[in-house]
């Protein structure tokens, strides 16, 4: 009984945490001033939000049903894929020059997004 009450409160708490972070992410998306800073808010705050919601779901299943952990897989996938998305969106911003130009790379290197290629796809040095 007590476990269930605690569990219920835990579920509710996770829900609130998740809701809070999702909302923060969305607010950041609207509020932050430029494309690169906007990138920070949802890609990670959102991840945390979903994570909390998933924890809520896991807890919920243990409290009210016969229990499951497969929500963790969703979290795992999000954690693996979010960096790829963020990486690509950064590249879009850099390529489209919609953000502050990144600093020069030392040792005569270039950022791979800014590499120029000729028509055959070869690098232009």
């Amino acid at each position, binding site marked *: 009984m007590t476990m269930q009450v605690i569990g219920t409160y835990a579920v509710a708490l996770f829900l609130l945490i998740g809701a809070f972070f999702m909302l923060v992410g969305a607010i950041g998306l609207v509020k932050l001033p430029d494309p690169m800073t906007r990138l920070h808010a949802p890609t990670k705050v959102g991840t945390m939000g979903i994570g909390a919601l998933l924890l809520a779901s896991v807890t919920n299943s243990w409290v009210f049903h016969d229990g499951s952990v497969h929500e963790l897989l969703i979290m795992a*996938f999000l954690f*693996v*894929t979010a*960096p*790829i998305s963020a*990486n*690509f969106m950064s*590249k879009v911003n850099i*390529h489209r020059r919609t953000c502050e130009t990144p600093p020069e790379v030392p040792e005569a290197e270039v950022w*791979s*997004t*800014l*590499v*120029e*290629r000729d*028509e*055959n*796809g*070869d*690098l232009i040095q």
Partner: protein
Amino acid sequence: MSLFLIVALPFLGALLPGVMNSAGRQAVGGVTFTVTLAAFIGLLTNLPAVLAGELVQTGFNWFPELGLNVTLMLDGLGFFFALLILGIGLLIIAYARFYLAREDNMGEFFTYLLLFQGAMVGIVLSDNILLLLIFWELTSLSSFLLIGYWKHLEAGRQGARMALTVTGMGGLAMIGGMLILGNIVGSYDLSVILQHRDLIQADPMYVPALLLILTGAFTKSAQFPFHFWLPHAMAAPTPVSAYLHSATMVKAGIFLMARTWPVLSGSPEWFYIVTTAGLITMILGAVIALFKHDLKALLAFSTVSHLGLITMLLGTGTAFGAFAAMFHILNHATFKAALFMSAGIIDHETKTRDIRILGGLRHLMPITFVIATLAALSMAGIPFLNGFLSKEMMLEEMEHTYLFGPEWLVPALATFGSLFSAAYCFRLIGHTFLGKKRDPESYPAKPHDPGAGLWLPPAILVVLVVVIGVAPFLVEDFVKIVTAAVLGSTAEVPEAHIKIWHGFVTPLYMSIVAVVGGLIVLAMFKPLSRLWEATPRPEAKAIFDEIIGAFVMYAKMIIHPLHNGAFTRYSMIFGVAVVAAGYHAWATGVLGEVTRAVQPVGWVEIACWIMLVAATIGLAAMHHNRLLALILIGIVGLMVSIAFIFLSAPDLAMTQITVEVVTIILLLLALNFLPNQTPIESSFLRRGRDVVVAGAAGLSTMALTYHYLLRDAVAAPISEFHLANSYKGGGGTNVVNVILVDFRGFDTFGEIIVLGIAALLIYALTEALLNGPVRARLLNRKPDKPLSGTQHPMMMVILTRVIFPVVLLVGFYVFLRGHNEPGGGFIAGLIVSIGIIMQYMASGFGWAQDRVRWPYHGVIGAGVLVAGLTGIGAWFFGKPFLTSDFTYVRIPPFEKFELATAALFDLGVFLAVSGAVMLSLESFSRLARRAHVKDSDEPMDVDPSKSIITDLEPSAQEGV
């Protein structure tokens, strides 16, 4: 001989000339002659029966449901016409054998001629009016071919088309008339119809039927106002003119009027229409004929005139009129065919038919002169020649015919027509043969009498002209038998005898006036001709061309703007039509009671709705930015997926999500080649109109959806059965999946085939593009915007390598549990495909392609085969296609699990779907392969562990 055979012989024989073309002209002509002769003799074998007044009949059923049966009958009228057709046919064939030039395709000519002959015989022997119609139209067709026989002549082509158009129109009108007639009587058999004069004439549809049938008859027989086609048909070779356009085909209309005379004639409508048309035609034809300089044109208009005469006689509706008409048909056939053949001889020998160039030929072509002169004098109505006899009878009949106006009008007009008739006959003789003797060199060719082959046929006819003219009693009985057949039971054959001398009666005076007047007119020919030339008159051909031209122009005005390739309008019409028809159905129905309660709305639903609607409207409003449009459509898809989840359809949501990903990849692959912006092209008004149409469509579907959502079906849906039996009979708890692979597996079978075909099509088109002119364009393609240098970012490459096996595992999981939980072959196939696409996107086309072990074609084929063979497997257990079976097995250490044929079927689905998706995407990206960037064998841009910058390594161009 059986009537069938008589009709069939020319048709069967028509195969021979064409086939025997290589056997030589003699053989071709000979076989044609033989065929006709056989039919002719066959006809004669029926002569005793006809003379005995019997009606020879034969027939069999062809279209009993329609009442169209092959029934033939032979009476005096039919015999008479068949005799003309086959008899004159024989002469024409003999004549044509010598007339046609070396370079003419004689086999073709005789084939057409025999077809025509058969059709004509068919017309006159038909007992069934629908059958008659068939032969009727066949004469139009074969005459089209014969007139256009000299394909290189512009005039021939135009004449042929005009003849076909006019007579075709008449034929179609006749179909209408015949159908009405059949409808009134209840039978299409002539022998039945002819018994119902009163029934027909009392019917309100009598007049329309009469008009339609007369249209057919008048067009065929070149009666005013349809007379104009006949002279233009003269572009045909002369044997054709002689045969079709004087002796036979043009008489088909006359035949029809004679045939239907017992039931159609005698009414005021008949009298006024037919007599008037005949009278006008007679006079008009005669006047025009006089001023024609082309021999054949002159003869053509004279034919028009004489046909008018016969029509006029039939129009009077008296027995004597019919008698005179029949007699004149016989006479006209003899002298006119002879004249045409003579004209042909002149044309053949002098290489001209222009009367103005001719003259004085009597010295150079004495035989021809005699033949032509006798025939022409007969036509002019000179005594002791047959034309005189029938013309007298005509004048006698006209003497007491009252049409309009004063009593003397018709006789006077008839005399006037005869006068011109005599005049052109005299002109023909005088201007062609008489006159001073001329040097043979003064003609376009040196004229002389032709060989017997050419002059003998007309000579035979002229002998008839004279014999009948001198001894009319020889044919009188025969003509009376024919007349009896025309009259049927409606009237007695007149007692009158055909005599050369009737005493000093009015017709004789009229005749004298005509002949003398004709001579006077000829004497005044030059001034009259100048007057004629100066008189403005409508040119029939010009009018006809103008009418046809106008038709064509209006046709183009209707068709081309309507079908101008404007899909925008096609789709608008589609939308409007659907909305209008749907609205009509709605508005004329009764709106039923609401039977279902409205369900409450939470505000998450509202939020989702807002997103869906905003994305949709945003898409419509901002579609010009194509990438944005794609992003928005992604949102629409996402929201629809969520709606499916919310509304208890997890399978649908999963399918929608995965399909969405693949679709977007596909569209992006395509967008790479397309402009990124859609220009704003349509005007504000146009867009306004489109908004209205689209809005109407939207409102309609909204109303319809709402209507159904609030009402129950008329009976419990079939899905109750599916829910009840999914586990028991299908072995699965996911009812949607069991429906897909079992209850309605056949749909799914079709569906994977659709996907498979889509992929094959895309592949085939890619191949066609890459091997066509587009290839160069693709090779020279320049990116339309600056590109980033990053192709295969390390981070994506590495992370997707980790994800890939997990995706495959999840795919397998989704596949396995599909039967009992959300999932199944489709979704699994799409998941696995996306997993592979991930690798293509991360590591590059070339790199990924190297690692694909099964050709996607094969995967598709195998998938469809697996699914199909699973279905066929049931046959071996005596069950229908796709009958499923399942069992539960337990192999330690695993839990009890299910083995189902449905899973095998689903495997086929899985293979087909993944193969199709991959083949499609692969094909799309192959277009870019040739485009501008060489493929890299390295999976990532940078591999610091190798301490090299892979991009700097020259790599071989990847083949496709």
